[in-house]
C-alpha cells in the first residue's frame, strides 16, 4: 500500500464528483491541445510549403498574401491574370529576367476543379515535376510519373492559337482561316495529389473531368472535352499539393469556347473595350494566373523586386516574406484562443479546489484516524494534493486522447475547410509538457483543501462517533 493508493481510493469513493471534475479538465485540456495542434499544423503546412522556390508573379491588383494563398495554398479564387510574356521574359533572360537569371519559371492557370470536394485543377507544364521543388526536392511520385507537356509545346500551341484568334478578330472568312489548334490525345494526361487519389478512390488509368468553377455552384459546368487520364499519383506531402490535380496547360487553353477568354486585352490608352478586343493579339497576351519562379542567386530577388515594381500588369510576391507575416497573424489568433483555453483550465482547477475542499468536513475523522496511526501532516497533504493531481492527470490524459480522436474524426472536414491536414497519430513533445503542466496545476489546486485537511485536530475528531 502506498499514499497514492489511498488517493486513488478516495477518488473512487467520490466517483460522481470525480467524474464531473475530471470532465472539466478533459474539456480544458482538449481545447488547449486542439488549439496548439491546429496552430502547429497550420504553421507546418505553410512553412513547409515555401521552400524550393522564391517568387510568385501574379496580377497587380491582388495583395501579395492573396497571391501566395491562392497560388501555393489553393485558398480563395485566383485574383486575376497576367500575360504569358511575363513568363517568357523571365525564361529568356530578357527584360525583367535579364539580370535575375531564374532557375525556373513555371506558368500556371487555374479556375477549374474536380468533384464536390472542389479539388483545384492547375494547368501547367511538365517542369512542375522536373524543376519545381517542394521542400528543396522535386515532387515524388507514389505511382506513375509526370505528363508530357513542355514549355516549347506550350509556345508552339500558343502561336497556332494566336494566329487563329487573330483571324477571328480580323473576321477572315472561315475557308481562309487557319485551323484552330487541336487538343492532342497525348496531352490528355494528368497527375493527381495523394489526397485526391485517396478521397476519390482514383488510381492510374482513371479518367477525371474538370469542372469550370466550383462543382455544384451556379454557372459551373463540366468540360468533357478536357477529360484526361491519370498517369501519375504524387506521394503525400502534407501540403496543398496533395489536394491538387495537375494537367497540361494546353488542355486548359483549348477547352471549347475559351478562345476569347484566353487572351488578355492589350494595354492601349484611349481605346474602348470593344476596340481593344478587336485588336490583333500575340502569344504573350495569353493569360495565366501565376508564374512560379526561383532566382538563381541571392541578388535575384532584389532585382526582380525592383523590376516588377514598375510593371504595369504584374507584381511579384515573396512567400518567404508573406507567409511568416501571415503565420504571425494566425499565431496571434491562436494565442488569444490559448488564453481562453487557459481560463477554462483555471476554472477547472478552481472546481477541483471546491470539490475537494467541500469533502474536508466529512473526512475529518478519516484524517484523524490516519494521523493516529502515525501519518504526518505532510503525508495527509500529499494524499489530498495527490487526489487533485491524479484527477488532473487522468483529465489531461483523456483530454489529449479526445484531441487526437477529434483530429482523426474531423481530419477530412478540417482539410476541406482550411486545407490543413491534421495528423492525429503524431505524438508531440508539448503533449507531455501539457500533461505535466495540467497535473501540476491540479496539484496546486488541491493545496488549499490539503492544508485544511492536514490541520485537522486529531484528538477532537477521534473522539467523534460519526
Amino acid at each position, binding site marked *: *500500500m502506498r499514499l497514492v493508493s489511498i488517493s486513488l481510493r478516495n477518488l473512487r469513493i467520490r466517483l460522481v464528483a470525480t467524474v464531473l471534475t475530471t470532465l472539466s479538465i478533459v474539456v480544458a485540456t482538449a481545447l488547449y491541445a486542439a488549439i496548439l495542434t491546429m496552430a502547429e499544423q497550420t504553421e507546418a503546412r505553410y512553412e513547409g510549403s515555401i521552400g524550393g522556390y522564391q517568387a510568385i508573379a501574379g496580377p497587380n491588383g491582388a495583395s501579395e498574401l492573396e497571391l501566395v494563398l491562392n497560388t501555393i495554398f489553393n485558398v480563395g479564387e485566383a485574383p486575376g491574370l497576367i500575360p504569358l510574356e511575363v513568363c517568357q521574359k523571365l525564361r529568356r533572360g530578357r527584360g525583367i529576367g535579364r539580370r535575375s537569371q531564374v532557375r525556373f519559371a513555371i506558368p500556371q492557370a487555374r479556375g477549374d476543379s474536380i468533384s464536390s470536394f472542389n479539388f483545384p485543377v492547375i494547368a501547367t507544364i511538365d517542369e512542375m515535376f522536373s524543376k519545381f521543388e517542394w521542400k528543396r526536392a522535386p515532387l515524388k511520385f507514389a505511382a506513375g510519373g509526370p505528363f508530357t507537356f513542355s514549355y516549347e509545346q506550350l509556345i508552339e500551341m500558343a502561336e497556332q492559337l494566336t494566329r487563329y484568334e487573330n483571324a477571328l478578330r480580323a473576321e477572315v472568312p472561315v475557308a481562309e482561316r487557319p485551323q484552330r489548334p487541336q487538343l492532342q490525345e497525348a496531352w490528355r494526361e494528368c497527375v493527381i495529389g495523394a489526397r485526391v487519389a485517396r478521397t476519390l478512390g482514383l488510381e492510374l488509368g482513371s479518367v477525371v473531368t474538370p469542372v469550370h468553377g466550383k462543382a455544384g455552384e451556379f454557372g459551373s459546368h463540366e468540360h468533357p472535352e478536357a477529360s484526361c487520364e491519370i498517369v501519375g499519383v504524387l506521394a503525400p506531402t502534407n501540403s496543398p499539393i496533395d489536394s491538387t490535380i495537375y494537367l497540361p496547360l494546353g488542355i486548359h487553353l483549348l477547352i471549347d469556347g475559351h478562345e476569347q477568354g484566353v487572351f488578355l486585352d492589350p494595354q492601349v490608352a484611349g481605346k474602348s473595350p470593344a476596340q481593344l478586343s478587336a485588336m490583333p493579339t500575340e502569344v504573350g497576351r495569353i493569360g495565366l494566373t501565376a508564374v512560379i519562379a526561383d532566382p538563381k542567386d541571392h541578388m535575384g530577388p532584389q532585382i526582380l523586386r525592383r523590376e516588377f515594381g514598375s510593371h504595369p500588369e504584374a507584381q511579384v510576391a515573396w512567400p518567404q516574406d508573406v507567409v511568416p507575416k501571415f503565420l504571425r497573424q494566425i499565431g496571434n489568433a491562436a494565442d488569444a484562443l490559448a488564453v481562453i483555453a487557459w481560463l477554462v483550465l483555471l476554472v477547472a482547477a478552481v472546481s477541483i479546489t471546491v470539490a475537494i475542499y467541500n469533502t474536508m468536513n466529512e473526512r475529518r475523522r478519516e484524517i484523524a484516524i490516519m494521523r493516529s*496511526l502515525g501519518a504526518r*501532516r505532510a503525508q495527509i497533504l500529499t494524499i489530498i494534493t495527490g487526489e487533485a493531481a491524479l484527477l488532473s492527470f487522468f483529465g489531461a490524459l483523456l483530454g489529449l486522447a479526445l484531441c487526437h480522436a477529434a483530429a482523426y474524426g474531423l481530419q477530412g472536414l478540417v482539410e476541406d475547410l482550411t486545407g490543413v491536414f491534421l495528423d492525429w497519430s503524431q505524438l508531440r513533445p508539448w503533449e507531455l509538457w501539457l500533461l505535466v503542466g495540467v497535473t501540476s496545476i491540479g496539484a496546486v489546486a488541491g493545496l488549499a483543501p490539503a492544508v485544511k485537511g492536514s490541520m485537522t485536530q486529531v484528538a477532537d475528531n477521534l473522539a467523534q462517533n460519526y
Partner: protein
Amino acid sequence: MIHLRDVQKSYSRGEQSVLACAVDRLEIAPGEQVALVGRSGTGKTTLLHILAGILRADRGEVEIVGERLDRLGEAARDRHRGRHIGMVYQTFNLLQPFSALENVLMGALFGRGAGGDARLRAEALLEQVGLGERLHHRPSELSVGQVQRVAICRALINDPELVLMDEPLGNQDKATGGQVLDLMLQIATDAGKTVVMVTHDPESAERMQRTVDLATLRPQEVVA
C-alpha cells in the same frame, strides 16, 4: 517504558482554562499490562493521547519507549507513534472504504513502512485472529467482534513496544469483548508488549496486571 512526571494538560473553554489531566507521577515497566480507570472527566482519554503523542502536555516530562515526547515536535511524535505505539479504540476507527487487509496495511504504511513483507505480516496477523477468510472484506461486511480483531491487528502490525487501548470493549457484549481482550492480552503477553488500557469496566480492568486510578495520580495541589 512509560515515565510521566508532573504532567498537566488544560483546554481553553472561552476565557477559562479547564484542567483536563494532571499526573504527578506514573511509571509503567516494559511488558506490564495496566488498566487506567477513573470517573468520567478525570482525563483518561486525554492521558492516553498524551502517551500516544497525539496531544502535547502543557508541562511535565513524558518519556515513552525511551523518547522524551515533551521535547519532540509534532512530526517526530507522529513518527514515534507510528513506529512504537499501537492503538485500539472504542469505536474501532477502521476506514470504511478499505478492506480488512488494507486497514492493517495502513498501520504499516504510517508506521514502519508498507513495503517488503508488510503484506505477509498483515495476512499472518489476520489469520492468527481467525480472519484469514475475511482479508478482503470491508468493515461493513464484518461483525463487531471481527472489526475489533482487525483493529487489534492494525495496532500490532508494526510490532510496537506499547499498545494503548481506549475502552476497547465499549461497543461489544461482554462475552465477545472478553474473548477479544483475552486474545489481545495473549498476543501482547507472548510478544512481551506493554499494554495500557483505559476502561470503565471493572471486569476488564481485573484482567490486567495492575490497575491505576487516575484520581490517585493527581498532584496534591490539584486535588486540593
